[in-house]
């Protein structure tokens, strides 16, 4: 809760600074004494992980920019130069490339946590929307960044995505030409993508600032979804959550290090080690793994423009989620029916990801012969992605609104500190099942 500050300047210097620029007071109120619900579980540590990953990406990115050359003839070689000749260049480059994947892994866990615990619900709608904006900026940054090494996948991925924009009626082709700076993806495109790739992370940092500000107005959500009622429901952020976040970060770093040091190319594509050739398309054009579900949705629709619209709608749906969810209970801990649909949703997203990695006509279960339905074999990935996409949209636009109105939730505890805390899923006898008031 944003309450009144408890900071007391101790030294003369602190008093002098506090009356001119209360930055120490601000830091104290935001990350030292900030009252945080005491029941946050490990799913809440990913905000800290994300802040760290943004910092790592910016630092490693600035270092790479000291050596990288954003010119179509020199880019690929400059990346190899970084890996071979620049002192510890291999470390910085592998950290940056795998850091992007880890950044997205953390953001997906963070988003799925929000969906489960209803953190997007009132009064945190703006917080959620700011998060969606960050997600969108991250995807743009990741896309621009992947183009920079100028490998086959970099180049042809850029061709596909920029051609998508061309599907927009009337203004599409002009916007595509603006993006290209020419008649096709070429050197001018690479140069401006580099500029934008450098710019966007700082915009992300700015929106992250707003995101944390918007968080601190109502304060953190917690696994029960019940509002903080008194001081006894909270602990100061430091040292309780600085240390807990620190532990979660160190475990996350172990996973990160496993990729950087032992499997640095596992999440990439071998084709990107071939210099970009505009005259030859690789066998399979596959975006980075974190964009695969949206790629699958795009290809699920047989019409070019409709595919683009559905892909953007998939992201746009997130923005309006707070108004689609009619449930009066925040946390799915007390919504057993919703929980089932939620897990199927996670499955659908994973299935969409797998579909995105395959050619649409490939068969899911290899066999000879098959049943054609409309434009493709029923056993093909394109039909599987259609099922996945259908569930994706149905989950937000049909299931979520209906469930809130029709399901019977479990008893929600009165407060964070009340005795039911140690047995979250059981409804103790005599407890009042008071549905959470909105707002």
């Amino acid at each position, binding site marked *: 809760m944003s309450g009144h500050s408890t900071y007391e300047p101790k030294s003369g210097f602190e008093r002098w600074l506090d009356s001119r620029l209360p930055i120490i007071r601000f830091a104290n109120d935001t990350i030292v004494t900030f009252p945080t619900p005491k029941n946050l579980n490990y799913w809440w540590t990913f905000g800290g992980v994300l802040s760290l990953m943004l910092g790592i990406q910016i*630092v490693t990115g600035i270092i790479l920019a000291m050596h990288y050359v954003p010119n179509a003839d020199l880019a690929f070689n400059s990346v190899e130069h970084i890996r071979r000749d*620049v*002192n*510890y*260049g291999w470390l910085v480059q592998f950290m940056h490339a795998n850091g992007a994947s880890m950044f997205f892994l953390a953001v997906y866990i963070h988003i799925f946590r929000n969906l489960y615990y209803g953190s997007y619900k009132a009064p945190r709608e703006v917080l959620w929307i700011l998060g969606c904006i960050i997600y969108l900026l991250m995807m743009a940054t990741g896309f621009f960044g992947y183009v920079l090494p100028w490998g086959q996948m970099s180049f042809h991925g850029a061709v596909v995505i920029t051609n998508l924009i061309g599907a927009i009626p009337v203004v599409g082709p002009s916007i595509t030409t603006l993006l290209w700076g020419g008649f096709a993806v070429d050197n001018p495109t690479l140069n401006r993508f580099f500029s934008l790739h450098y710019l966007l992370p700082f915009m992300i940092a700015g929106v992250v600032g707003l995101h944390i500000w918007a968080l601190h107005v109502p304060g953190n959500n917690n696994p029960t979804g019940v509002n903080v009622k008194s001081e006894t429901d909270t602990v100061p952020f430091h*040292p309780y959550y600085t240390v807990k976040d620190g532990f979660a970060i160190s475990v996350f770093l172990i996973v990160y290090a496993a990729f950087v040091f032992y499997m640095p190319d596992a999440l990439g594509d071998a084709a990107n080690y071939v210099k970009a050739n505009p005259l030859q398309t690789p066998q399979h054009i596959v975006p980075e793994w974190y964009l695969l579900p949206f790629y699958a949705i795009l290809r699920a629709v047989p019409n070019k423009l409709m595919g683009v619209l559905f892909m953007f709608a998939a992201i746009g749906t997130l923005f309006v989620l707070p108004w689609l969810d009619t449930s009066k209970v925040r946390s799915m801990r007390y919504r057993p029916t919703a929980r089932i649909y939620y897990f199927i949703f996670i499955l659908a997203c994973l299935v969409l990801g797998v579909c995105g990695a395959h050619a649409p006509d490939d068969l899911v279960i290899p066999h000879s012969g098959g049943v054609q339905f409309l434009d493709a074999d029923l056993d093909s990935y394109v039909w599987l992605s259609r099922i996945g996409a259908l569930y994706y949209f149905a989950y937000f636009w049909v299931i979520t609104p209906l469930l809130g109105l029709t399901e019977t939730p479990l008893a929600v505890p009165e407060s964070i500190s009340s005795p039911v805390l140690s047995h979250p899923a059981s409804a103790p006898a005599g407890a009042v099942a008071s549905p959470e008031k909105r707002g």
Partner: protein
Amino acid sequence: MADTVAGASPDLHASGDDPNRRDFIHIAAGVAALGAVGGLAWPFIDQMNPAGDTLALASIEFDLSKVVEGQQVVVKWRGKPLFVRYRTAKEIEAAIKDDHADLRDPATDESRHKPGKAQYLVLVGVCTHLGCVPTFGGGDYGGWLCPCHGSVYDTSGRIRRGPAPLNLAVPDYAFLSDSKIKVG
């Protein structure tokens, strides 16, 4: 912070439970965190040091048969001009004569060439004042003259007049054979 509800938030001032007290484990964790940041800081700083390909060009070999007596050849070495001068006997004599003159940066001529190879002078062609390239043969000592602010060097490359504080630098070099040197 009167706690009347059972199982409430921690009483921060209970003896032995004060989390603000510097328990060893917290100090150890903090030190480890700083260690991790420091361990990563060195590679991130070292990456700005010269890269492998820059270091590869750090040493060059030069064929002395390209230099004519009384003339100099200028080659690029480590991004800077390198003067390789084949001195005439008169120029060597003039340089030795001034070995103990009033020099701003005292040095004997012998210390500025390889033993037995007095005729070859290898110098970094960067004026020690502010970095311009001195012109060959200019100035009244027959050595070099820097056009930017008028520093005058003698036939041993020593500073004689003008604002430069030091003699023209002699790089690290060695004779691989009578006609070949390796610089750097």
